[in-house]
C-alpha cells in the first residue's frame, strides 16, 4: 500500500511495525509529530515527559523492562538528555531502543544550530540517517534490529527537511504478531554503573563499535550509484537529494549508517572516481571521516557550514568549486520594489501580550528607542530574562520586551546570576508554564536557596503552546486529551519555599502591573503567575471589539499591541471581527476609550 507520509509519520509507523510499544518525548519542532502520530496506534503506550532527560530515563526503564522503545526530541533536547543518553550507551539495553534526534539546520524554530552527528560518535552509539520517508520507514526496522543485536541504543538522526517533508512510502510490513512481553532481567553488572562495573562495560562499548564497523560494510541501504567517474559525491540525509538534483551525471555514495561509517566501501568508491567531494549540511562530519581514511577530499571549502541547504545553495557552491559551469545570468534586473517582511507574531487574544506590554513599560526606558546594539541600562530599567516559548516572540517589535533567551529554563538562572554578580538593576524572569515544568523548577529552588530577590513571572496559558498545545504535569492533560491529576503551580512554588506568590488574570493590565511592581519592589524571591488560556489551543472567543470612529483620534497606540486582529483599512485602524477573540487588551491600551465591545 502506498501512502504519502511525512518523515515524522514514517518514523512512527516504522517503529510501530518494528514492534515498538512504548514511546516518550518532549515536544519540540521539528520532532513533535513523531509521538503524536505514534500515539494514534492501538495497544501502544505514548506519553509526553516533563523534559527530554526524563523522557530518556523513562524510555531506558521501559527498554530495560524488555519493551521495544522509542524516545524522540529535537536537537537541543538531546543536550538536556545527554546525561542519561550516555549512560544508556554504557549499560546497553534489554529490548530495542531508538533515540530520535531531529536537528534543525537553518534554525527554522530553534535557538541554535548544532550537528548532533557528533553526539553519536561521542556517546559511541550507532547512528542512522535516512534520505526520505521511504527510507525512514525501512530504517526504523533496522534501528530496532541493531539495538537488540548489538546491545545498544541507536541514534536515529533526522533534520527538519526529512521530518517535515512528505514523500511516498510503500508500506510493506505489518506489526509483528507477538511483541516481547515486559520483564526485567536482573544483572547488577549490566545495569548498576558503579565504577567496577562501568569499567567492564566500557570495554563492551569499544567491542560493540568494532563489530559494527564490520557490520555496516554490508548494510544494504548504503548505496553506490555509478555515473560519470570524473566526480564522486559522498553524501547523506536530505543533502543527498539536493546533490542528485544538481549533479545529474556524477557518481554517488549515499551513506545511511553515518556512525560508524563503512570505511572499505568509502575507499572502494573513492578509488573508482577521479575526484571526491562530500556534500553535507552543517559540520564537516563525513568529510573528516573520509579524510581520516587518507582520501583526498573537498567539502566545506565550497559548501556552507552554516544553515540549511537547498538546490540553489548546492548549485552555487558547485559552480564556485568549478564542478559545474556558471549559469547564464538574466540580462535585466527585476523592478526595485521593496517587499515588507512578515514576521511571526503572537496570536489574536494571546494571553502573553498583556504581560509583555507591561514588562516593556516597567522594564525599559521609553525615551530610548529599541535597538539591537549593546547599551548600558539606566538605573530604573529592569533586566527581563526570558525563556523558550511563544512569549519569546515578544522580543520583536512592537512589543520588544525581552533581554535574554538561551535555552529551556535559563531565564531563572540568568536573573540569579546577574543579581549575585552585582548587576544593580532589578531582574525578572519570564517563563511559560510548560517550560517552568521542564526545567524552571530547579532554578526556582535555587532562587529560594540563594534568597535571590528575583521575580519569576510564570505565563500560564494551560498548555505547551509553541509546539501545538501538548499537555504537561501542570495541565493534567494526557496524550489522548483525558484529564488526570494535576500539579498545582501555586502549591508547587509555595512548597519550594516562595512566600510571595500572586496570581493575576492575563487580560487585566492594571492587576498585572500592580503585581509586578509590588513583587519587584520587595527584597525576597517572588512569583507572579499570569493566567489566561492559550487562545489558539482552547479556541477562546468572547465578544469582539470594534473601533468607534467618532472617538478614535488615529494615534495608532493600539498597534503597539501587535495583535493580528488590529488592521489598517482605508487608512483607518479597524478590528477584524472574525479574528478578534475579545481579550480586551487593546481596549485597555487605547487612551481615548475608542475601542468598545461589538454589541455596544
Amino acid at each position, binding site marked *: 500500500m*502506498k501512502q*504519502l507520509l511525512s518523515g515524522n509519520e514514517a518514523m512512527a509507523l516504522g517503529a510501530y511495525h518494528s514492534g515498538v510499544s512504548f514511546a516518550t518525548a518532549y515536544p519540540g519542532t521539528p520532532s513533535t509529530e513523531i509521538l503524536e502520530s505514534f500515539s494514534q496506534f492501538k495497544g501502544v503506550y505514548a506519553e509526553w515527559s516533563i523534559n527530554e532527560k526524563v523522557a530518556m530515563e523513562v524510555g531506558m526503564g521501559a527498554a530495560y523492562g524488555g519493551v521495544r522503545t522509542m524516545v524522540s526530541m529535537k536537537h537541543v533536547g538531546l543536550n538536556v538528555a545527554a546525561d542519561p543518553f550516555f549512560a544508556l550507551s554504557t549499560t546497553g539495553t534489554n529490548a530495542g531502543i531508538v533515540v530520535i534526534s531531529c536537528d534543525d539546520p537553518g534554525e*527554522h*524554530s530553534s535557538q541554535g544550530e548544532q550537528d548532533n552527528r557528533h553526539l553519536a560518535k561521542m556517546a559511541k552509539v550507532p547512528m542512522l540517517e535516512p534520505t*526520505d520517508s521511504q527510507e525512514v520507514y525501512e530504517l526504523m526496522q533496522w534501528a530496532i534490529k541493531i539495538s537488540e543485536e548489538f546491545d545498544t541504543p541507536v541514534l536515529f538522526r533526522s533534520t527538519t*527537511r526529512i521530518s*517535515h*517533508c*512528505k*514523500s*511516498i512510502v510503500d508500506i510493506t510490513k505489518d506489526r509483528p504478531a507477538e511483541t516481547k512481553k515486559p520483564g526485567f532481567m536482573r544483572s547488577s553488572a549490566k545495569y548498576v554503573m558503579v565504577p567496577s562495573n562501568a569499567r567492564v562495560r566500557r570495554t563492551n562499548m569499544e567491542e560493540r563499535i568494532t563489530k559494527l564497523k564490520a557490520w555496516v560494510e554490508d548494510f544494504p541501504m548504503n548505496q553506490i550509484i555509478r555515473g560519470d567517474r570524473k566526480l564522486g559525491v559522498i553524501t547523506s540525509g*536530505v543533502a543527498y*537529494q*539536493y546533490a*542528485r*538534483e544538481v549533479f545529474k551525471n556524477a557518481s554517488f555514495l549515499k551513506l545511511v549508517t553515518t556512525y560508524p561509517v563503512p570505511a572499505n566501501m568509502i575507499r572502494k568508491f573513492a578509488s573508482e572516481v577521479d575526484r571526491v567531494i562530500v556534500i553535507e549540511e552543517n559540520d564537516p562530519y563525513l568529510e573528516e571521516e573520509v579524510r581520516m581514511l587518507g582520501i583526498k577530499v573537498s567539502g566545506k571549502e565550497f559548501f556552507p557550514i552554516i544553515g540549511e541547504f*537547498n*538546490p*540553489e545553495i548546492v*548549485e552555487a557552491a558547485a559552480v564556485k568549486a568549478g564542478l559545474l559551469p556558471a549559469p547564464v545570468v538574466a540580462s*535585466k534586473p*527585476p*523592478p526595485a*520594489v*521593496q*517587499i*515588507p*517582511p*512578515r*514576521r*511571526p*507574531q*503572537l*496570536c*489574536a487574544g494571546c494571553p502573553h501580550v498583556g504581560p509583555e506590554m507591561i514588562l516593556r513599560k516597567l522594564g525599559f526606558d521609553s525615551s530610548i528607542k529599541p535597538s539591537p546594539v549593546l547599551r548600558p541600562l539606566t538605573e530604573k530599567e529592569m533586566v527581563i530574562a526570558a525563556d523558550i516559548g*511563544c512569549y519569546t*516572540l515578544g522580543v520583536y*517589535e*512592537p512589543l520588544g520586551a525581552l533581554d535574554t533567551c538561551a535555552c529551556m529554563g535559563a531565564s531563572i538562572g540568568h536573573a540569579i546570576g546577574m543579581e549575585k554578580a552585582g548587576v544593580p538593576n532589578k531582574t525578572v524572569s519570564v517563563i511559560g508554564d510548560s517550560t517552568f515544568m521542564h526545567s524552571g523548577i530547579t532554578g526556582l529552588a535555587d532562587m529560594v536557596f540563594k534568597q535571590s530577590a528575583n521575580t519569576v513571572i510564570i505565563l500560564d496559558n494551560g498548555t505547551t*503552546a509553541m509546539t*501545538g498545545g501538548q499537555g504537561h504535569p501542570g495541565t493534567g492533560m494526557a496524550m489522548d486529551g483525558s484529564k488526570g491529576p494535576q500539579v498545582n503551580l501555586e502549591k508547587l512554588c509555595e512548597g519550594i519555599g516562595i512566600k510571595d506568590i500572586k496570581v493575576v488574570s492575563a487580560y487585566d493590565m492594571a492587576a498585572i502591573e500592580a503585581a509586578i511592581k509590588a513583587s519587584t519592589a520587595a527584597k525576597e524571591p517572588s512569583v507572579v503567575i499570569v493566567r489566561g488560556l492559550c487562545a*489558539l489551543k482552547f479556541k477562546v472567543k468572547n465578544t469582539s471589539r470594534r473601533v468607534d470612529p467618532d472617538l478614535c483620534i488615529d494615534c*495608532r497606540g493600539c*498597534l*503597539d499591541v*501587535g495583535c*493580528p486582529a488590529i*488592521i*489598517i483599512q482605508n487608512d483607518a485602524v479597524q478590528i477584524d471581527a*472574525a479574528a478578534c477573540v475579545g481579550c480586551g487588551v487593546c481596549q485597555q491600551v487605547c487612551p481615548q476609550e475608542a475601542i468598545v465591545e461589538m454589541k455596544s
Partner: protein
Amino acid sequence: MKDVNVLMVGVGGQGVILASDALAEIGMKAGYDVKKTDSLGMAQRGGSVVSNVRWGQNVFSPMIKKGEVDFLIGFEEIEAARWASYLSPGGVAIVADVTIIPVSSMSGGVPYPGWDKIKSILAHYTEKVYLLPAARIGEEVKNPRALNMVMMGAIAAFLDLKDELWLEDIRRKVPPKFLDSSIQAFHKGAQVTQSMKEKGVSR
C-alpha cells in the same frame, strides 16, 4: 507525464498547508512520484508560509530550485511577489486578490506595495499572471475561509486531471459542515481561471 513544480505561498491561517497536502496526494493518486515540504515561521499564525509540491517521474529534492516553479499559487499578494523569482520562464502565477498588511508595514516600516507594483515584479518573470477575485468567490459561496479551495480550483484548470480526483480528496479533508461551500469554491475557482486562460486575460 510532465513534471510539475508548484510553489504555494501565503500567510499562516490561510489554509496553504491543507491545499498543498491535498495537491501532493492528488499527484500520488495520478501516478506521480511526489515530494512536498513546507516552510513556516516560528509562530503558529501570521508568518509567511511556503509549500513546495513536486510531481514527477522521480523526484529527488523536496525543495524546488529557483527558476523552476511551473505554478506560483499566491494566497496573498505580497507573498506572491516575494517568491516571484522562483518562477520558471513561462511559468504561471495565480494570485488571489487578498492583501494582509504585515505589522512591519502598519507601524511605519516598508509600505505595502499596491497590485501594480506587485504585478510588475511578477511580470518580470512571466507573462502569465492571473489575479483571481477570491474575495468575491468567497462571498458567493458564503464561505470566506474557502480560499484554499478557490486556489485548488485555479490550479486544477491548468492540470489535466479528472475532476473526481480533486473532489475525492476534498471530501476526505474538509469537515462535513463546510463541504458544499468548499466544492462550490473549487468549481468557481476553476471556472474563473479557465475563462481567464481562454481570454488570455492577465489583469
